Every structure is written in C-alpha cells, then in structure tokens.
C-alpha cells in the first residue's frame, strides 16, 4: 500500500519542476514577513499561478514572531500541502513556536542568514538542506534595503517565478511609497542574484494567464456575496476572526448606500439587524463562536416572528474563548441546535475561499425567501486565507421577500399557507399594520397560549423550510462508487485533494461536501449516497458533530464512521489520503 507522501501532489517527484510548492516565511516582529508574503502571493497571481496564503503569529498582541505560509501551484488549491518545501527565515527568534504548523519536506530547503545562527532543530532535523544567504550583509549594501526583500528576491528565483511578476507585485503593494519601492526593487534583484542558478525547487510553468482570477480572502468574498445578495444593513461587534469581514464591509456598504453600525455588544447586533429586516432592509451580522452564543435567544425571536436575516459565524477554536486565531469546525452543534424550543432555521457552510461568496449570497436569498434566519458557518481558515482563485461564478441569487400589498384585505401576517410562507408587510404599507411577535400567536399575530395555535404555527415554520426547493447547490457531489466521504466547510479542500491523490483508487470514493446543513435535504442526500455501503464523515472538531448530526437525522449506510481532528491545525491532504487508503482497504 503506498504511503500518502509517495502519492503526493507533485506529479513527477524527482523532476526539476513541480506543480505545487510551499514556502514558509518566518521572522520576528518587524522583520517584514507579512509584506514579503503578500508580495510573493501577488507575484504568483501575476505570473498566472494559483496560490494560497495563511498566517500565524506568536502569543504577543503585536510585534511578535510571525509566519506567512504560502502555497503556489499550477492548479487551484484550497488547502495547505502536507509539507513545506522551503522555510525562509529573516531570523529565527521564537520561530520554533511554529514547528507544529510548518512541517518540512525531507528534500526541502532552509534559507537563512548564517549570521543569525542555525534554524531551530525542530526544523532542521527534517533533513532539509540549509542554504546560507547573508541577508544582513546584502541588505546593508543597499540604501534603505531590507532583509525581507533580499530574501524574497532569492525565493522568487528559487521557485522560478518570473522577475517581472515580482516587480509588478512589489510596485502594486509598495507603490504609494516610492522610496521604499525603489529600495525594495534593488533588494529583490540582489536576492535574486544570490540564488543558485539551477534550483532544485522550480515550479512548472503556469498554465494560463491570470485573466479570470481573483485574489481574495474568504472574509472579503463573504462580504461581497452578502452585498450582492442584497444586504444593506450590518450591525456587529468586533471579534477575531470576523473583524476583517466587518472592516471590509464598512466602506463597501457605504459605497452602495448601505450602513454598518458597531453595536455595543452581540445582543444589540442581532436585535439591530432584526429591526432593520422588520423594516424591509435585508440585514446581516458577523461574529465568531462566543458572539453567536450570545445571539441564540434572539435568533429564536427571528424564527418565531419570521424575520429574515443572516448571521455569519467565522468559527475559531472553542470552547469559550478558546484559541481566537485558529480554525475549528466546532460550532456546528450550536448553529444547528443552539436555539431553545423547536426553532427551525437555515444553516449553510461555504466549502472554499471563493465559495464564501456564493454561499453568503445564497444565504441572503434563502433567508429572504423563507423569512427565517440563516447561519453561515465560515471559519478562521477560510475567512483569513488569501487565495488566488478562478473568478467566482455569479449564482444570480438575490434576496426577494414575499411582501403584503397595500390595502391587503384582512391581512394576516402569519397566515397558514400551503408552503408555509406568508406575506410580510413592510412598515409604511397602508392597511397592513401588524405586530410581529415572539410569543406564540394566531395567524393574525395576536399572542395565543392555545396548543392548537402553537401546533399550527410550529408546522408552518417547519413546512416552509422543508418544502423549499434548494436545487443543486445543497452540496458539491463528485465521483462515484460504493464508498463515500461526506464533509463540509474548510475540510473540503484537503479531502478533495486527498481524493485527487488517489486517482484510479480501487474502490472509487465519492465526495459529498454539504453546503446546506439545515434543513438537511435528506432525500437528496439519500440519492447522493445511493449504492454507497461504506461512509466516512470528515470534519475538524473533537466530538464528531457532523457525524452525530447526520446519524441522527439521515439514514446513513450501516458502515458509517468518522474521521475528525480538533482545531488548531488544519487537516492536510496526506493524512486524509492515508486514512482513506486504510479505511477503504478494510
């Protein structure tokens, strides 16, 4: 049985050129690691590559050691590779803290200034070769020259990135500071010169131009999807890792005539967007686990009073304050079952950086169509990863609410319609004034403690979600065969890549990546799993939340099992491939 590293992504392991290369840039605070990383990413994009960058930093609030982790490939990438090919250090201060996140390939390279000492043993014991580069000395010779730029020039040469692309990217990021730009260009050139002529780690040429590509983070894509879907009001309270989404939204909303308010807390955020949506303006808030927990009472109100809205939860490691800067898929439980009483609502999850756009947009459309709250489960990985992706397809889904007409006769806000959706009167509509209520109510909205009204309204609220035709977007389904993997969100990237590493694998394995988690389209899932007799549910949390949820509500094949890993460190394709081989072999 082949070991997953043997079947790694690089089509010709021994060859000079590779289809995917991963670089980790590290250094202490102020070393310019992030600037260099961003330039490298943009250069890769400019040169026609796909790419992905994630970041990590030490416990210090600011100014501590940092790591920029970049993967560049000739094909789309939605996760990091198992191993890094290059570790490039401006210096090595405290960078041993990143050891768990940066596993070096045995044939990898460590680049650093010999004057700064050796790379920590946790890295060098991988067997990677040390390539000395006198960063300080070279930088010193350039007026305004900085070590990070020298290192970057060297790296670009090592990887075979065209010089032009690098210069262009540098100009684009540093263009506003001409002096810095000039010095940087000189430093880049100096670094390039110092690189070996024939590097072992060279990328295959990019397959196409970057014409139809975007460089975007998941948080930005989510924000754009929300606005395109129709959101014009956002109230939120800052929280890592959702803050950047809000910071992107604030000016963007203003430019399209919308508004973002910073609320005093999450209780205010959710109720402010309820107010806006009651007023007819589609609304959203974004938060992370702790904030979502504070919103569940009022999410129940949105269910009962039938107020459309979207809550984006950019998940981080829990429970409690957990690890704010790391990713986990641990809020599935609370998103699905965190409301008191029987409170049916929508739960969606994007399964890639670009998919954040489509999923957010769909969430707005569904919330508005079904007059129900929708929770979007993004996560720190998707939200903060910056990626070069194919320009996302426009799903052409827009918020459209069934509204009561002026002068509706005998208007009943909570009328028991066949499909469960009843017309909502927007304040200002003559003759349709009503009071929205979180108390159980009659069709007219008058509070009622009669069991019959309760049964009827519970049924209405469930029905409207169950009867809706969600179309094909509910999941991405790939492959065929009697074995299947079900996953969601940011676990999809490594699962998909693991499967791609097992071409022609016997038995063949299907992939179902769920985009709509609640209500779970049970019939469609059964269809998607027709003929499957062995199922594996893969997710990033400790307790197997998706696995238990699916067992609870769906009819899974008898041989169903679970592969899970707590957050703090993403799955990599290799470990999944390894597991798939063992699992499908038994």
């Amino acid at each position, binding site marked *: 049985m082949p070991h997953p590293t043997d079947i790694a992504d690089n089509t010709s392991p021994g060859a000079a050129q590779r289809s995917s290369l991963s670089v980790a840039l590290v250094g202490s605070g102020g070393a310019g690691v992030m600037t260099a990383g961003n330039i490298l990413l943009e250069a890769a994009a400019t040169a026609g590559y796909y790419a992905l960058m994630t970041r990590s930093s030490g416990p210090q609030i600011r100014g501590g050691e940092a790591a920029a982790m970049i993967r560049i490939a000739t094909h789309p990438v939605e996760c990091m590779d198992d191993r890094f090919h290059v570790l490039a250090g401006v210096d090595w201060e405290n960078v041993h803290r990143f050891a768990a996140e940066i596993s070096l390939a045995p044939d990898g390279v460590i680049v650093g200034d010999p004057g700064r000492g050796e790379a920590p043993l946790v890295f060098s014991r991988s067997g990677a070769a040390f390539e000395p580069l006198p960063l300080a000395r070279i930088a010193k010779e350039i007026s305004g020259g900085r070590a990070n730029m020298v290192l970057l020039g060297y790296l670009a040469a090592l990887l075979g990135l065209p010089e032009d692309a690098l210069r262009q990217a540098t100009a684009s990021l540093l263009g506003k500071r001409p002096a810095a730009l000039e010095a940087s260009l000189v430093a880049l050139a100096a670094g390039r010169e110092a690189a070996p002529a024939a590097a072992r780690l060279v990328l295959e040429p990019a397959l196409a131009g970057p014409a139809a590509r*975007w460089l975007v983070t998941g948080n930005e894509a989510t924000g754009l999807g929300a606005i395109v879907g129709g959101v014009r009001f956002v109230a939120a309270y800052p929280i890592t890792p959702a803050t950047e989404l809000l910071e992107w939204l604030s000016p963007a909303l203003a430019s399209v*005539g919308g508004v973002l308010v910073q609320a005093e807390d999450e209780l205010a955020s959710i109720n402010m967007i*309820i*107010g806006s949506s009651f007023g007819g*303006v589609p609304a959203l808030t974004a938060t992370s686990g702790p904030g979502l927990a504070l919103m569940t009472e009022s999410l129940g*109100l949105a269910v009962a*009073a039938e107020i459309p809205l979207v809550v984006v939860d950019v998940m981080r490691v829990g429970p409690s304050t957990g690890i704010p800067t790391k990713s986990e898929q641990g809020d599935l439980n609370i998103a699905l079952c965190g409301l008191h009483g029987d409170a049916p609502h929508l739960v969606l999850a994007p399964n890639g950086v670009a998919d954040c756009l489509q999923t957010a947009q769909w969430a707005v459309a569904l919330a508005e169509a079904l007059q129900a709250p929708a929770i979007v489960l993004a996560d720190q990985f998707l939200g903060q990863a910056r990626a070069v992706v194919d320009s996302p397809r426009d799903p052409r889904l827009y918020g459209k609410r069934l509204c009561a007409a002026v002068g509706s006769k005998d208007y009943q806000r909570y009328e028991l319609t066949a499909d469960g959706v009843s017309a909502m009167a927007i304040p*200002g509509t003559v003759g349709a004034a009503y009071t929205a209520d979180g*108390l159980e109510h009659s069709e007219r909205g008058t*509070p009622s403690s009669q069991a019959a009204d309760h049964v009827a309204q519970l049924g209405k609220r469930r029905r409207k979600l169950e009867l809706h035709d969600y179309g094909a977007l509910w999941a991405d389904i790939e492959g065929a065969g009697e074995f299947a993997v079900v996953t969601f969100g940011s676990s999809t990237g490594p699962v998909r890549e693991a499967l791609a590493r097992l071409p022609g694998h016997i038995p063949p394995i299907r992939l179902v990546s769920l985009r709509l988690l609640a209500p779970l389209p049970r019939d469609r899932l059964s269809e998607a799993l027709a003929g499957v007799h062995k199922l594996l549910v893969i997710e990033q949390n400790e307790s197997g939340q998706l696995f238990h949820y699916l067992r609870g509500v769906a009819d899974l094949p008898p041989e169903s099992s679970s592969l899970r890993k707590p957050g703090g460190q993403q799955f990599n394709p290799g470990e999944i491939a390894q597991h798939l081989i063992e699992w499908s072999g038994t």
Partner: protein
Amino acid sequence: MTEAATATIPVPSDYKSNVKPVWCPGCGDFGVLNAMAKAMARLGLRPEELAVVSGIGCSSRIPAYTACYGFHGVHGRALPTGTGLKLARPDLTVIVTGGDGDGYSIGGNHFLHACRRNVDLTYIVMDNRVYGMTKGQPSPTTETHWTSKLAPLGTGINEFHPMAIALAAGANFVARGFTGDPNGLADIIVQAIETPGFSFIEVLSPCITFRPEQKDWKKTVRHGNLSSTADLALAARQIFSDDGMNLGVLYAGARPPYRPPIGRGRVAAADLAAEFRI
C-alpha cells in the same frame, strides 16, 4: 383605522387596534396607551408611518394595542431593535416602549448606548418599580426597603435613577410624565417625537396588582415641577433635588442626531468585485 380616516383629521382612536389588552383593570399602562394615541393624533402622522417597538413585560404589550406597525421582541432588547429599524428606515417614526425591568435591568446597557448614540427615537418607559409580568419582583427602580418573596428583607440596594443616567449618558431629551395625566403626558410625547435625537420619557405608571400603594401617586406627583432647560449642568442640578415625583421636561438639548448614510451610496454592488480582480 378606516381608509377614509387618513384623509380626515385623525383622532386618537385611529391609533388604537381592536386587540383587547391583557392588563389588569386599573393598570397604569392604559393611560399611557391613551396618551400615545392622543400624541399620535396631534402629530397627524399616519399609523403606518409609525412603528412601536418593545421588549417583554406587561408594559411591553403596548405595540399590539396600537394601530401602528409593532414589534414585540425579546426581554430587554427593544432599543437595539428600534435602533436598527430607524437606521434602516429613517422615514419611519419609531417609538420604543417598555418597563423598568426591561429597560433598566436586563436592557440597561442598551439604554446607556442609545442615549449616547442619539439616534432619532422616542423611548417611553412605563415605570411601576416592579416586575409586573413575572408577578412582583423588585426592579432597579424599586425602593430599597420594599419587601417581596424574592427579597424578603428588601433589596438593600440603592434605587436606579433613570433620568440621571440618561443625562450622564447623553440623551438629548429627558422628561417625566404620569399616566394619570394623559393630556400632559401626550404633550410630552409630542415634544419628544418632535425633538430630533434620542428622547427619553420616564412615565410613572402604577402597577395596581403588585404595588397597590402606587394608587397614591396621583396625590404625590407634582405637575410641571421640572423646568425644561437646554443647559446640562442646570438639568443635573435639578436631578439632585428630585425625589422622583416631579413631572415635566427636564432637558431638551440640541445635539444633532446620529444619521446613517443609508441610501446615499452610488456604486453598484457588482462593481465592488473590481478590487479582487487580478
């Protein structure tokens, strides 16, 4: 309200729905409902241009008894709901209502920040110094020594001073009314709605059932004893000698309200994608 009524001069009854209040006979909140209806009629707004938002409590039942758009939300969150509604729909007149428990206990933080934010809302608190709906527990405004099942020896805690907090937090209009004087209260409500920014009205509204002694309020209130000023320091000084029974407008400021830029952008949503294209 009939179609015809919109064309003729509105009367208070145009602003009441036909839903029967669940309040105890004699509850002070009836008078507040009447005063609100009077004020709305005087302002001549159409019911559908008005929205009445509330939390949970006896007093918070008021929206459904008006003919306006109403929102009966969760306990303590009426102000954020009203804020979101007003920011998204600046064309509506938004009145937020509730009780002393809803507004000062669980909702205290939103009260602070609504005063500070100064969105153009009118906030009417029916203060009966008790939790009526849950059957008689002390609220923040309950007198220290009032005994109840939950606090058999009294709360032992100083009373909350809503008007002092409203001033300190930056409300632009602060007044006290009494449900037993619906005309006077209606005057205050009209003035509050007409004053831009956040207006706060404390209304003494007896709970006949759990605080029957509050029936005496009609004897102890002092009409017009607060004198309206735009000077914050003067207003603060009045508050120091206030025993909670003085009625009238305490403070009417001129701070411009927070106005959201909603509807003023010119960019098409799809064009926002430009920044991501390589």
